[in-house]
């Protein structure tokens, strides 16, 4: 009996024994975690520049605090016309992307789901995924070729039909339309993959039962397919809302030209031009911090709202 009692503590493996077995896993993790530490966490220390007067000679810890309790650059940013334009444009373009671009892949998935010829469906899918693999520089150059006032295919067709050339890329309102449209063009196929997978996971018996009850195509779509997609839609919507103030750099930067800068300048490109090109590090770090914090707040809010409405949210 006594001997057995001595064995009992063995159930909790001593740390040294545990490490003897598991050190390899930690060794494997060493490189990726170091990478994240250096390239994702150290930059967070640089965020304090937003609150400090930047100088090249001093280390970030020794720079003096900026005026107004360190909030000088935030105040400056919000009194800066260019930044306010960039903020407005970021919100406008992202909202339009959300309104137009978010439903597009869902609708496409619903359409594809109605196709019964398997071969044909696969070909359509392959073609629809193609634009996703083009870089934004390429997409813009396609747009240049397609929408040029004289030599562009679209304007040539419009003129052939007796219309007038439309300045798709050179006039602000049209530029916004082109920007959003090509965004949808580039992503609708790719983003439909997730929805198609979700549709494939819906129990086929539901459709059969509905058919027996005499439900038509659209009734089934509305009462079975869409409810089946709801969790996926909610998760992706939350992720999109978290990105409402975020903006990739590649897409807007590739699309910008001098004639439309008033509507085309977004936060990411503003930061690049004023920060990296213009060397106003403190101001643009403040702008970047504002962007990141708002992003996190939106994400949390959207997630909270989703849970409040009885959905699963993203965590």
């Amino acid at each position, binding site marked *: 009996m006594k001997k057995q009692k001595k064995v009992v503590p063995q159930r909790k493996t001593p740390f040294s024994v545990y490490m003897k077995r598991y050190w390899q896993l930690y060794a494997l993790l060493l490189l990726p975690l170091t990478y994240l530490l250096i390239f994702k*966490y150290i*930059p967070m220390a640089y965020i304090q520049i937003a609150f400090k007067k930047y100088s090249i000679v001093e280390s970030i810890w020794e720079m003096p605090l900026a005026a107004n309790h360190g909030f000088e650059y935030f105040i400056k940013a919000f009194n800066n016309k260019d930044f306010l334009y960039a903020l407005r444009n970021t919100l406008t373009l992202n909202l339009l992307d959300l309104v137009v671009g978010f439903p597009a892949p869902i609708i496409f998935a619903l359409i594809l789901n109605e196709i019964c*010829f398997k071969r044909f469906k696969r070909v359509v899918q392959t073609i*629809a995924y193609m634009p996703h693999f083009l*870089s934004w520089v390429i997409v813009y150059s396609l747009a240049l070729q397609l929408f040029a006032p004289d030599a562009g295919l679209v304007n040539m067709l419009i003129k052939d039909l007796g219309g007038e050339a439309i300045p798709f890329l050179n006039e602000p309102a049209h530029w916004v339309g082109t920007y959003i449209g090509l965004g949808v063009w580039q992503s609708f196929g790719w983003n439909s993959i997730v929805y198609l997978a979700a549709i494939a996971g819906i129990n086929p018996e539901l459709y059969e039962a509905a*058919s027996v009850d005499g439900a038509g195509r659209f009734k089934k779509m509305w009462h079975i397919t869409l409810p089946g997609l709801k969790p996926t839609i909610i998760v*992706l919507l939350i992720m999109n809302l978290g990105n409402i103030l975020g903006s990739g750099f590649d897409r807007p930067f590739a699309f910008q030209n001098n004639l439309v800068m008033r509507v085309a300048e977004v936060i990411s490109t503003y930061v690049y031009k004023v920060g990296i090109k213009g060397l106003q*590090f403190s101001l643009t770090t403040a702008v970047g911090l504002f962007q990141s914090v708002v992003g996190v707040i939106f994400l949390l809010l959207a997630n909270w709202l989703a849970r409040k409405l009885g959905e699963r949210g993203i965590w």
Partner: protein
Amino acid sequence: MKVKSTSAKIGDWIFVLICVLLSVICLVPMINLLAKSLSHTDYLIRNEIYLLPKGFNLDAYTTVLHDMKYVRAFFWTAFLTFVCTIFSLVMTTLCAYPLIFEKLKGRSAINVFITITMFFNAGTIPNYLLMKSLDLLNNPLVLIVPSCLSVYNMIIMRSFFYGIPDSLRESAEIDGATFFQILTKIYVPLSKPVFATLALFYAVGRWNGYSDALMYMKNAKYYPLQLLLYNILNNINQVEVATQEGFSAPGLSESLKAAIVMFSTIPILLIYPWLQKYFIHGVTLGAVKE
């Protein structure tokens, strides 16, 4: 099979028609570009090119292939893409594999450490200053190292690893295999689909990316193809463009641009259809939450 009514059949065909239309919309820009790149200058100047080339010739492609600037950038980008893809796959595996072991102490803390980086980004300028302090500016490594691990891709790989039965791993453990052996002998051979998917994601990201080179790289020798293309489209380095194309008709520069775009797109367009069944699975794994 049940017999369909006529109206249902008409409905089917309407959906087919919509799909054909969408496919055309996806393809037309590329076809138009291809036609332009293959057409003779005269027709281009007169704006006569729609979807078929007129005055078929390969002059634009010959010019591109004889210009060392493009050929060099092409091979440099190809090399960069290859190195990045291999390196990123290794990093992703190293990160994803240990995290599937529930017995790993500190696992949840590590998960939090990783997840935070997904939702909070320090921003452009802090990243730039980091590169500066690491002496990576204008160093070709800056196009490889900073983007070598995507947490999103790591999650895809981890989800795939979770799908491999635990029993395989456990029996190997009982047989005395080390964790490293289990990785190389069991997990890697079974994970070819997810490796194919992520290789495609990383390769496309590197091939298509230009912002890191724009921000961190001043040495034009190391410009990836997309940045070179961006500069050409926006007539940056005017002098260079002028000396190169100044003597030729404006039409040729149009077909030249078209040829350069084709030249820098074709590798990806040739690869992705073959990996379709893999990446569909990969994207789906990414959307599955834990």
